[in-house]
């Protein structure tokens, strides 16, 4: 059975929302503050001003599940203040799409059909929907951000930060001590099937306009691995229509 597609999507969604965060207490005397770690990170990827100037962003690439021999095209668009749309096209198998227009979070795929996200799934989408704030790691979006230690992540010395949302959802992120770049994340993703813990490794940062982004993202969820490769990133060119609800979703949300 190939019942893993939801896990794939869940992990992707977590990645699509990308980064985030702000201030935090010191883990111990020698460690930098969370704010310092984040400031260094923001500087490394282009600076706060460049990120704050973003109105929308579109990433196009591929996602592969090497163990299963599957490859798909991926197209993710986000726009301020809180819209997103993602489409994954699998040759011969159809499309998996999901989105959030600021009010309704939805998904549609061949496995489950169209559905409107509710409860914890919706809450997760909403609390991470502001892509600019996510990239800036805006402290106001979190209950707490703290440095919990320094450890090797995939062979690189990294500061380990714990981000806790007001809802209690927590994510652990790893920032390279030398470059300041975000190189990893461990997060739990809500899905209809339950919580899925995904471990993400981010590598191959490249410059796109004024922003530097990882172009290789490897996600491990249980025994499965997914590798996303970003081909192109464009900014401020996503039309509003990209976030319109599909007809099936409109029918589902109709009072």
């Amino acid at each position, binding site marked *: 059975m190939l019942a893993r597609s939801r896990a794939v999507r869940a992990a992707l969604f977590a990645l699509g929302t990308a980064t985030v965060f702000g201030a935090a207490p010191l883990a111990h005397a020698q460690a930098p503050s969370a704010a310092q770690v984040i400031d260094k990170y923001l500087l490394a990827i282009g600076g706060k001003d460049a990120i704050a100037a973003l109105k929308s962003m579109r990433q196009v690439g591929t996602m592969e599940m090497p163990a299963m021999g599957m490859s798909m095209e991926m197209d993710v668009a986000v726009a301020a203040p809180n819209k997103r749309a993602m489409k994954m096209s699998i040759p011969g198998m159809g499309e998996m799409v999901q989105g959030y227009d600021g009010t309704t979070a939805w998904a549609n795929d061949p496995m*489950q059909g169209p559905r409107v996200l509710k409860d914890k799934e919706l809450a997760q989408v909403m609390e991470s929907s502001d892509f600019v704030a996510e990239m800036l790691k805006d402290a106001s979006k979190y209950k707490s951000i703290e440095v919990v230690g320094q450890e090797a992540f995939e062979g690189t010395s990294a500061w380990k930060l714990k981000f806790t949302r007001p809802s209690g959802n927590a994510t652990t992120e790893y920032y390279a001590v030398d470059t300041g770049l975000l190189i990893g994340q461990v997060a739990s993703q809500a899905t209809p099937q339950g919580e899925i813990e995904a471990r993400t490794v981010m590598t191959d940062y490249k410059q796109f306009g004024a922003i530097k982004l990882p172009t290789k993202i490897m996600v491990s969820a249980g025994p499965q691995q997914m590798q996303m490769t970003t081909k192109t990133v464009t900014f401020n060119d996503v039309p509003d229509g990209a976030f319109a609800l599909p007809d099936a979703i409109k029918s589902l949300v109709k009072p």
Partner: protein
Amino acid sequence: MKNQAVGRHRYDSRIALRAGGPAHLAGVLALLLAARGPLAAQPLPTTSCPAATPAAPRARPDPLARATFDSAVAIIGRTYFDSTFRGVPWAQLADSLRPIVEAARERSATRSAIRTMLDRLGESHFAVVDGTLAADAAPEATEMRSLGVEVRWIEASVTISALRPDGPGARAGLRRGSRIVAVNGCALEPELRALREQLPAALVGTRALARARELLMPRDSAPVRLTVDTGRATPRLATVTVAPAILSERLARLGNLGFIPFDVDADRVRHGDREIGVIRFTAWVPPAVAPIDSAVDRFRDADGIIIDLRGNLGGIGGMVMGVGGHFIDSVVTLGTMRQRSSTLRFVTNPRRVSTAGVRVTPYAGPLAILIDPQSLSTSEFFAGAMQAVGRARLFGERTGGMALPAIAERLPNGDLLYHAIADFVDAGNRRLEGIGVTPDVAPSVTRAALLDGADPVYDAAIAWMRSQPRSTPTGPARR
């Protein structure tokens, strides 16, 4: 029993075309025949079908053997859902076989060693397969030629269970109930005898059908010669030459699993004062979703719906969430997948919008699911779950009991390792692996019934539906 076709397609209840669609690699082949000649008396072939030509032994040990073996051992070691390996000393077992692998001069020896390890786990969904077979099955188009014939394992024989009404096999004069004796002059019996000697009885039928489908799948437009035991006095044996034709079957690519044949056939039929929707599909693959959704839309005002999963060998497990949601108007757990570090539930997505974007409620009328020993994996999962939550009545024979979530990974030498990554229990917390799903109603399925043109399982489902109260339409239907 007579059927009155009232839909776009004529449906003959005695015919349930199936193209075969294995979720696991063993043999994914549809058996469809188009015929060209009349039946003719024929002596029984005695020639065995040729086995694959063994590769010439290498002068030196296979350089990839050790890496391939170790990779397989590591993958299972990392992903098998029971960290105790059901008491099998996994590492020790690998150590004992490694010297054999290191001396291997052929890939078959490496495969044999890996199979020895997999067999010790004693569960379905574990196999190592020649990777070149998957490559061979990689056509450029999704269309496929077929013979319009379905076979099942009935009374210990490969038996024609259905013929597509307008298909090549039917036009050639093949009949339901006939046993396949030989394909292109190669007798099946020697292989069947070997399977009986080597395998547990419960596995013989599935393996035999996989092999038969492989032999019968047209590779090109060349006619296929079938020798059949007609079940009649004269001619007892007959040979038919069938020219493959492109029918409605298609191929769906499932990653490393290669191309899976599938077909979806849906008809609205009348039985007395009842109109019944019948949906048959041969594999759980994403391209089958749209026609299944469309069929449910057409049958929303029907007095009952039958889902025929006989011969459906499985596919993508997640599809049960969407298909199940057509029949259950709430979010319910259909089954649970247990991995070492996580547990995932398969839950219904109540389907409250039609394919036309119109608001509907899931179908609430009588639902019957037809199963047989070749209903495997996702088919068992779906049938068992719908039974456990009280939404469907099951008719037929006990399913094959091969229900584990699995994936196929490529090994260093190009072979494919098919392996389960989770255990599975259905909505009733029942483990289906090795047990199967027991039908609520189990009519006797015999060759004689097929020869008489009957389908006892289908007939039992219809009889039950006719005893049920008339259902209330749940939304607009499209005829």
